[in-house]
């Protein structure tokens, strides 16, 4: 049995009328098949509007699928609602979703009670969580005085308040400083050691590589690719490139014919972009450039968007709509 399973999952939003009075609909998820075994930390990567939040909401039962099915620990999210809810902890980030007038401790205590944590355990549980997320010093201050990152940590604490075996983390590190983001990586490691299944959405490829057992790339409501972080980083270096300044034309011609170089283009600012088809293509290119006195150069990992574009192009899919 998979901890999380979706089959041909589709979700269509009927948007309100637009300016011209046409009422349109938007497909947020378009036939998603996803299987996540218990204990896996699974990353969901995708650009804005890819459907990541929509998937998390369906799995946490606050949104109903249009068609297809989704289940958590074998329970359907629509028909087995009551069984699913205690199993899932969800963290929808951001400034919203907390009672700003109450302290962090009061907030946690409320959600603990709501999730059926026995009253005698609530105090201890909230204190432990506040400690774990570095909020102990501000625990009794109003949440509205917290910084964004602190609110984010409180969201995470809330997600764990009932000790769920499955966690859905929707962009859990937005607003966190780099140190907290590192703490977050450690936290994910702990959650993995505790045997929990984690679905975490992010825009950050490096973060996904660092914490996930497997990563799924989504775009436009469809799954593009599922891979381990190793495969992902291979993919990334495959689409690596070199950028250099002040490369003479003659040198550009020579670089172009080196093995593994797919494209060379110089823009109006005088920056030459050399796109590579494999990781081993980079050293000869760099060597040649340096020999010829080009010192202003850098190798670049492609951003997530670039990888998508490549993947989409490889599959002959249309970009955008």
């Amino acid at each position: 049995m998979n901890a999380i399973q979706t089959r041909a999952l589709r979700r269509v939003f009927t948007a309100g009328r637009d300016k011209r009075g046409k009422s349109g609909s938007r497909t947020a998820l378009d036939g998603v098949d996803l299987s996540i075994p218990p204990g896996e930390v699974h990353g969901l990567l995708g650009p804005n509007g890819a459907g990541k939040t929509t998937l998390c909401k369906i799995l946490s039962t606050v949104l109903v699928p249009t068609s297809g099915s989704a289940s958590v620990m074998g329970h359907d999210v629509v028909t087995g609602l009551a069984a699913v809810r205690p199993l899932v902890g969800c963290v929808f980030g951001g400034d919203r979703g907390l009672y700003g007038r109450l302290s962090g401790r009061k907030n946690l205590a409320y959600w603990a009670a709501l999730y059926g944590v026995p009253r005698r355990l609530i105090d201890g549980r909230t204190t432990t969580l506040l400690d774990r997320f570095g909020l102990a010093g501000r625990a009794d201050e109003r949440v509205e005085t917290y910084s964004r990152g602190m609110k984010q940590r409180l969201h995470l604490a809330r997600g764990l308040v009932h000790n769920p075996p499955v966690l859905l983390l929707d962009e859990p590190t937005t607003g966190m400083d780099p140190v907290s983001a590192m703490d977050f990586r450690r936290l994910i490691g702990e959650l993995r050691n505790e045997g929990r299944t984690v679905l975490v959405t992010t825009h950050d490829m490096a973060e996904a590589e660092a914490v996930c057992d497997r990563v799924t790339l989504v775009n436009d409501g469809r799954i593009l690719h599922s891979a381990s972080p190793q495969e992902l980083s291979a993919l990334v270096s495959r689409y690596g490139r070199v950028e250099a300044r002040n490369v003479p034309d003659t040198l550009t011609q020579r670089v172009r014919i080196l093995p593994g170089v797919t494209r060379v283009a110089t823009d109006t600012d005088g920056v030459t972009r050399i796109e590579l088809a494999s990781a081993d293509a980079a050293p000869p290119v760099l060597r040649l450039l340096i020999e010829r006195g080009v010192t202003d150069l850098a190798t670049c990992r492609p951003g997530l968007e670039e990888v998508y574009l490549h993947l989409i192009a490889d599959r002959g899919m249309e970009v955008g709509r």
Partner: protein
Amino acid sequence: MNRYLAGFRLQTALLRRAFGDLHTLLTVPVYTLIFLAMTDGVHRPGLSTDAVLAPALMGLWFMAVFTAGDLIVWDRHHGTLEPTVAAPGSLAPVITGRIGAVTLLSFVVYVESWAVGAGYGLRLTVHHPLVFLAGVVATAFATACTAAMIATLLVLPRNAQIYQNSVSWPLFLLSGIIVPISALPDWLRPLSRLSFLYWSAGLLRSALGTHPVDDALLRLTAVVLLGTVGAGAAAFLLRKVLTRLRVLGTLGYS
């Protein structure tokens, strides 16, 4: 029970930190003064009861509609409804607990209007304390249940706030707490029987009077029954509304 308590404690904590939400309570003395002045209640003992009772009942109702009626809408706008719904168990006891906290606090309206009456030189005696007490409790129950229904009805329409005022005054009129029912057109009068506030006001008025109270049990039953109908409607509507929001995807309202 735990979910009820969770709601009750949450709302108590929220109210303690937001005196702004309690502004309704400040209007009770003002209304009491207005009514006393208008009816010249001190010199017309027949009306003095109403002049004190009406602002209390109005305050109770306004607290329910403005503070309790907003709960779900507020949660939805602030993104707290979504995690509340994602938690296991039904939402109804949580909301009931929260409204219960508001209603309990609202008992202070009786103290306020009584105090203003006393300050005006008015001596009100509760001649039938048991009936009065039962009436006050039944009224609180019915108010909370009706507020729960309104809280649910306010979720779907945009700008729901404007309805909060527009349902209140007709209710007051129908219930005979501002003007006697006999002042209403004939065809309207039967509708009064459907308002719990009509029965509440009648019962409490009788409990304050010197005459024996007629049909006390029957009138109490009417209050409780209408409250229960409200609670049933609230639970039914809440299920419908939540399903609708989950289908539309607007539980989180962004």
